[in-house]
């Protein structure tokens, strides 16, 4: 019996601890106090549930108990001068005044996400704080994912929490006039989390791969609570990219380009879900950048092969993206796609024009793309030079191995 309850408690923790924490942060208006309260609540559950049975609404029980414990602690320690509001509104005993606004629980998680991704926090801190507080990753796991020291991550999180407290960053979902800008910041953090995992190159690095799944989970949560086109677009984009994970590297961890991937390894379930989401995301009056990028990924996902892909439509989608956001990186991608429509000559001329832009001068994919086009045109010496420049700009082992293989191949053709 006791072991049943212990394992059930573990399940409750896994499923609900972040919700309970989010609500405790709203009620207590203090991250650290809320974390302590969460811990206390589960400690109490471990003592009481085997004796009294599992309460009807475990989440509400945990929130009430955590809140009660926190207030009790404030009373005993008299440590926070600014916490009188909690004592004023506090119930005497959690059983007497059970926590009842259960329907606010999901909103609390959304509030927490908006707080952690507030644009007044520095971008690195937003990501670390979101992974810690919303996704429950440890500082060690976050540090491993971002290839930095746990102490650095811990410090970022501490500083961010201090700023939330001292600048009074509110715990709220922004109103309609501010929502688009703030949602951008949330989606940016989610995509960064995903990409950090997606670009993880060595298969042994499980923590990093785990991040891609975490980004998708986070986006699903936001979509559930805030069903907007761009959230749908980002979820679609990530699912479609993630569907190719088993085809992107060979057994030695070497990169396989999209054109050479074994498409039977793509995850059809994720592709179907991603494509359905794209169609819904594109129905609005204007399409956002995530929806448009997802639409490009969807065309690739539904194409039987690289050559049998609807390239004119991809070029058109890049044009729509460029019209929204004149970025040299998007222009580069358009040029590369256009090689399949107008041929490598036109594409190479476009890439060379773009390389005059200093923003691309250190951008590895620009030189890799240039080399690829030169190789296709049979300009092997030029391609060799471009590959060499690309090699100078990347430190990722699989990318370096890929470029080195291409360089060797060009050299043989000379």
């Amino acid at each position, binding site marked *: 019996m006791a072991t049943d309850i212990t394992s059930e408690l573990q399940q409750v923790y896994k499923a609900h601890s972040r919700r309970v924490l989010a609500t405790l942060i709203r009620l207590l208006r203090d991250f650290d106090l809320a974390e302590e309260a969460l811990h206390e609540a589960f400690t109490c559950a471990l003592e009481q549930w085997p004796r009294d049975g599992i309460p009807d609404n475990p989440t509400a029980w945990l929130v009430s108990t955590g809140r009660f414990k926190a207030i009790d602690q404030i009373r005993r320690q008299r440590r926070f001068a600014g916490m009188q509001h909690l004592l004023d509104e506090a119930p005497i005993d959690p059983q007497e005044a059970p926590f009842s606004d259960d329907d606010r629980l999901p909103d609390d998680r959304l509030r927490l996400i908006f707080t952690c991704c507030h644009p007044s926090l520095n971008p690195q801190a937003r990501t670390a704080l979101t992974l810690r507080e919303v996704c429950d990753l440890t500082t060690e796991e976050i540090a491993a994912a971002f290839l930095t020291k746990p102490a650095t991550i811990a410090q970022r999180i501490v500083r961010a929490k201090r700023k939330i407290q*001292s*600048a*009074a960053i509110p715990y709220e979902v922004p109103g309609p006039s501010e929502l688009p800008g703030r949602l951008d910041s949330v989606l940016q953090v989610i995509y960064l989390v995903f990409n950090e995992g997606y670009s993880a190159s060595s298969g042994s690095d499980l923590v990093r791969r785990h991040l891609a799944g975490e980004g998708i989970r986070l986006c699903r949560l936001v979509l559930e609570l805030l069903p907007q086109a761009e959230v749908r677009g980002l979820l679609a984009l990530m699912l479609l990219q993630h569907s190719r994970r088993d085809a992107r590297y060979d057994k030695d961890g070497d990169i396989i380009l999209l054109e050479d991937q074994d498409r039977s390894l793509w995850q059809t379930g994720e592709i179907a879900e991603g494509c359905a989401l794209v169609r819904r995301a594109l129905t609005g009056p204007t399409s956002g950048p995530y929806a448009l990028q997802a639409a490009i990924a969807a065309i690739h996902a539904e194409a039987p092969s690289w050559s049998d892909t609807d390239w004119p439509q991809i070029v058109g989608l890049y044009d729509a993206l460029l019209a929204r956001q004149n970025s040299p990186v998007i222009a580069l991608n358009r040029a590369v796609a256009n090689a399949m429509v107008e041929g490598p000559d036109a594409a190479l001329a476009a890439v060379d024009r773009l390389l005059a832009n200093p923003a691309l001068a250190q951008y590895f994919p620009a030189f890799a793309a240039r080399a690829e086009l030169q190789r296709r045109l049979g300009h092997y010496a030029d391609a060799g030079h471009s590959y060499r420049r690309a090699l100078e700009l990347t430190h990722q082992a699989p990318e370096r191995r890929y470029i080195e293989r291409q360089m060797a191949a060009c050299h043989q053709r000379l």
Partner: protein
Amino acid sequence: MKYLCLVYSDEQDLHGLPESPKDSECAAYAESLVRSGHMVAGEALQSVHTATTVRVRSGEVQITDGPFAETKEQLAGFYMIEARDLNEALRIAQGIPPARVGSIEVRPVRQLQVD
């Protein structure tokens, strides 16, 4: 909660651009904050050329010409506001007319620890 909104701008841009705010617009915005109960205090400042900096070192007063730090953007004015939280403070700050040509630094006020 009190926030100080520091208005920074290149002094040329503050008055010289088509979108530079007129004094009447700034006065109207300040007046609207008084009416909504957000304004604690606010003033526009004379040009940075009128600044004098005072330091006391080892009991000795040092007076120098000019601002504490030479930067491209100068302090041009301030609003001390009362806001519920940072989001409300940021909403007020983005309405300050010189935000269009300069920038507004929003800083929470710190309680002095005197215990």
